């Protein structure tokens, strides 16, 4: 009796402790999380709080770290091992949660930390085979002694930080999601780089275009999906001689895919029009100083914490400033005393699909080169947060992985055809991308630049270069597959060996130009070269508007300084509006109803600048999206996995083919819709949609920044309070200032080369710290939105006095 009387309370106490010690669904353990001694409130006490002297096992000599007042570390080490160790340690201190998160994404392990909701996304990423390719790259890196040492030094630095953590000190995201960091390894660094391959090279239109081919035939495809746009300003200027003898590429007799009777029913996402970049360099002939100036702004998905981390890395043999990717040693985009470099993405076609003929449902053998060949099978194991384990079987042919065996609604990659094997450059495991960046960090001249580029594979990038020897250059670089014309424009025949990739364009023959007569080099993801280039690279590149606008402005430029280039980075002029409106406005005027008059007037008076407050830009941008749908949705419906014609072809039809049959709505059998009807209808629909979403037309309601609604979201979208929304800036997807709702210039940099010491400016939309409560979490966003740049502090020596000094930290070896 006594027993029952007194034992209930200990049981209740234990039950309560147990209950508050474990997560409740997506809610973190309340006890731990709200304890002021352990939980999130402890994260506010950490204030970038390195003391002035710390001791770490892992450095061999004292390392001096100078922080400037933008919280950028300038690291001065006595040797390279210490340098990259310290880089790993410092980046982890500010960005550990983020860097690990990226590796969980590319290795398809998010289910372990967020649970079953991530399963289809994980399954997709596993099936792309990125983790497997990353493991092979690590094996190859082991043979490269220098790169391997650096990778390991970096990992040890990250681990030195991880080993100092306990629950109290964990980044708050770990506390909310309820897990702990794992040991860092070189594999994780490569997985981080895999993410970039996926973001920049992991998209395809092959499947959707094959559906168009099946439905309309090759003539229509040739007409509506041409291999080169009607208006273009290619990266390598037309007329640049190709001083090499091209490799022979054999075209097979049958190049079109073997059709299935029915349209392929299931279909990797098409390229995101917001993902791209700008870079350029002007030669001394155009600058005030007589030496080159280089600019770069890579457009990526905007996120918090930011994708970039600014650093200066200095040791004997290297002194470089720029941005690093959290998780990856070295500087990816930056400059040193003598040179500067930057990158933009190359849109070449490096992901193809092969229709595979399996012998039977076991998929153990497939037909290729007139014989049955064995497939390879891998079992993927997924561990969910709740402990559940799920297995998935993945089949490889010699091409690559069969991403989906069956067409299912919940397949994550909607543009990937089931039963097709994927050939993808991201699976290329020779070469060393890391070595390229590490060599650029140390490069002193043009020859060093070329040598650094020669070992790079993917994602292919337009590497822009400038040196204080007055050289400028740009190289379309990476492993570019040798292809016959239009190889991989459609699905390929997996049984025919002639449809296999035939090798790669030799590095020396990748499109490149040095010191062109026009006095500048530039790229904005447009076509790498005009059709005179002897190799086929692909038919789909970013629309030419950004590239043309940049080239127009650079052509006119004289006596330029860094600010002139900063101004071009922020150019909001819409060439697209300039191209289309003269054909569209007369139609509106002819048929206008009274409620449209004010909008039409705004468009007519518009200076074609997509500024933050422009109402005309809101109308035009909404309208062109709507107009595209009105023209194409009937014949090329997205829901049937069809691709619609590109921006340039559509513009050509609007401006010079008003009688094209495509303007007629194919879904209305008894009426014939005209160009005028489509223009007017889509315009009215756009005004209606703007009114519905933003209220009645006013400067306030319809301001472009509100309609565009650029958001910089935390990597976990549900963490809305760690995100920024509706940033007040201008721009647009076809605008040099390329900001969309979720993408934009993720780093802006301008470097004035100099014989003595370069002057550089830059910033990114975020901040150095990954801690949401830090004052350095998002401190650069407002300046970024306004188009300003910060002067970058590039120190000559570790003892140099700098104006924007925050503090010094000495890292001593721990005995």
């Amino acid at each position: 009796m006594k027993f029952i009387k007194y034992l209930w309370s200990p049981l209740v106490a234990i039950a309560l402790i147990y209950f508050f010690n474990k997560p409740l669904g997506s809610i973190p353990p309340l006890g731990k999380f709200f304890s002021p001694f352990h939980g999130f409130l402890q994260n506010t006490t950490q204030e970038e709080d390195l003391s002035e002297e710390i001791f770490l096992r892992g450095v061999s000599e004292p390392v001096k770290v100078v922080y400037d007042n933008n919280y950028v570390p300038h690291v001065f080490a006595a040797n390279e091992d210490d340098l990259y160790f310290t880089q790993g340690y410092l980046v982890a201190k500010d960005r550990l949660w983020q860097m690990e998160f990226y590796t969980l994404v590319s290795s398809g392990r998010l289910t372990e930390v967020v649970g079953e909701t991530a399963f289809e996304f994980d399954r997709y990423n596993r099936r792309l085979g990125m983790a497997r390719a990353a493991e092979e790259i690590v094996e190859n890196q082991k043979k490269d002694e220098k790169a391997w040492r650096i990778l390991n030094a970096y990992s040890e630095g990250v681990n030195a930080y991880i080993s100092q953590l306990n629950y109290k000190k964990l980044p708050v995201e770990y506390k909310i999601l309820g897990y702990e960091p794992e040991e860092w390894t070189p594999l994780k660094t490569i997985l981080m780089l895999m993410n970039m391959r996926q973001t920049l090279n992991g998209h395809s239109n092959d499947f959707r275009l094959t559906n168009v081919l099946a439905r309309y035939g090759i003539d229509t495809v040739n007409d509506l999906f041409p291999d080169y746009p009607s208006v273009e300003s290619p990266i390598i200027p037309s007329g640049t001689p190709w001083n090499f003898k091209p490799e022979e590429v054999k075209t097979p007799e049958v190049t079109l895919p073997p059709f299935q009777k029915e349209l392929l029913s299931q279909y990797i996402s098409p390229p995101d029009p917001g993902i791209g970049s700008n870079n350029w360099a002007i030669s001394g002939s155009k600058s005030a100083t007589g030496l080159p100036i280089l600019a770069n702004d890579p457009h990526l998905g905007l996120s918090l914490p930011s994708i970039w981390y600014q650093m200066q890395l200095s040791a004997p043999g290297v002194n470089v400033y720029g941005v690093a990717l959290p998780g990856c040693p070295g500087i990816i985009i930056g400059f040193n005393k003598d040179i500067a470099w930057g990158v933009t993405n190359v849109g070449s076609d490096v992901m193809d699909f092969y229709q595979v003929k399996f012998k039977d449902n076991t998929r153990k053998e497939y037909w290729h080169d007139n014989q049955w060949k064995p497939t390879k099978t891998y079992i993927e194991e997924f561990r969910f947060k709740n402990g559940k384990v799920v297995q998935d079987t993945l089949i490889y042919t010699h091409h690559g992985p069969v991403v989906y065996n069956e067409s299912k609604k919940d397949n994550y990659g909607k543009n990937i055809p089931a039963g097709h094997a994927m050939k993808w450059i991201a699976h290329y495991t020779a070469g060393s991308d890391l070595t390229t960046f590490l060599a650029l960090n140390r490069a002193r001249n043009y020859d060093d630049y070329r040598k650094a580029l020669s070992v790079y594979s993917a994602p292919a990038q337009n590497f822009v270069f400038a040196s204080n020897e007055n050289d400028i250059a740009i190289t379309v670089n990476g492993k570019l597959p040798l292809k016959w014309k239009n190889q991989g424009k459609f699905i390929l025949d997996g049984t025919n060996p002639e449809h296999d990739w035939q090798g790669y364009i030799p590095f020396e023959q990748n499109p490149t130009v040095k010191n062109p007569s026009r006095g500048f080099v530039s790229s904005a993801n447009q076509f790498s070269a005009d059709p005179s280039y002897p190799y086929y690279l692909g038919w789909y590149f970013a629309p030419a508007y950004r590239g043309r606008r940049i080239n127009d402005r650079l052509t006119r430029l004289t006596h330029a300084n860094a600010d002139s280039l900063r101004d071009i980075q922020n150019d909001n002029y819409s060439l697209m509006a300039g191209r289309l409106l003269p054909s569209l406005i007369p139609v509106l005027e002819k048929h206008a109803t009274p409620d449209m008059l004010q909008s039409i007037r705004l468009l007519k008076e518009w200076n074609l600048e997509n500024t933050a407050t422009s109402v005309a830009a809101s109308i035009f941008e909404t309208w062109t999206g709507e107009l595209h749908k009105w023209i194409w949705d009937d014949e090329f419906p997205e829901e049937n996995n069809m691709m619609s014609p590109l921006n340039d072809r559509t513009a050509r039809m609007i401006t010079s083919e008003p009688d094209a049959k495509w303007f007629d709505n194919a879904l209305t059998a008894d009426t014939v819709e005209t160009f005028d009807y489509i223009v007017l209808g889509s315009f009215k629909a756009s005004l209606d949609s703007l009114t519905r979403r933003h209220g009645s037309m006013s400067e306030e309601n319809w301001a472009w920044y509100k309609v565009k609604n650029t958001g910089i979201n935390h990597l976990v979208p549900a963490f809305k309070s760690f995100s920024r929304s509706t940033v007040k800036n201008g721009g647009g997807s076809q605008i040099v200032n390329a900001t969309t709702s979720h993408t934009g210039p993720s780093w802006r940099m301008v470097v004035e080369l100099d014989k003595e010491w370069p002057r550089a400016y830059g910033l990114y939309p975020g901040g150095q710290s990954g801690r949401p409560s830090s004052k350095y979490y998002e401190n650069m966003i407002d300046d970024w939105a306004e188009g300003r740049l910060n002067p970058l502090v590039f120190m000559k020596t570790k003892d140099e006095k700098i104006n924007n000094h925050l503090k010094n930290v000495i890292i001593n070896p721990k005995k």
Partner: protein
Amino acid sequence: MLYFSIIILGAIASLAGPWWSLPLVACLICALKAQTPKQAFGVSSLAAVTLWTGYSLILVFSGKENLVDKIGTLFAGDSAVIAGIPSLGLILAIVILVAGLTTGFAGLAGKHLRMMFS
């Protein structure tokens, strides 16, 4: 006296141990010192609430950084009702609930265990 010993020893234990060090300390002290079960529960609960809200408020107001609003908004999720509560209020409510309940019952458990064995 009971009240202050729970706060002081609880704080020391919490600095070194896990979050449930506080209820554990309350349990032990109440086993030794509490007069009645009612007192064990009430004083433990009050001491825990004092300690956790006190230290929370010190961190909130002395810290240079504000995470309370962000976490409050996160916990409110899409619920308009909860979003209406000031973040600090919401967070203190959870702190009081967790600390008060667990430590209160742990204190009571201490007294009860003592009574069971005596």
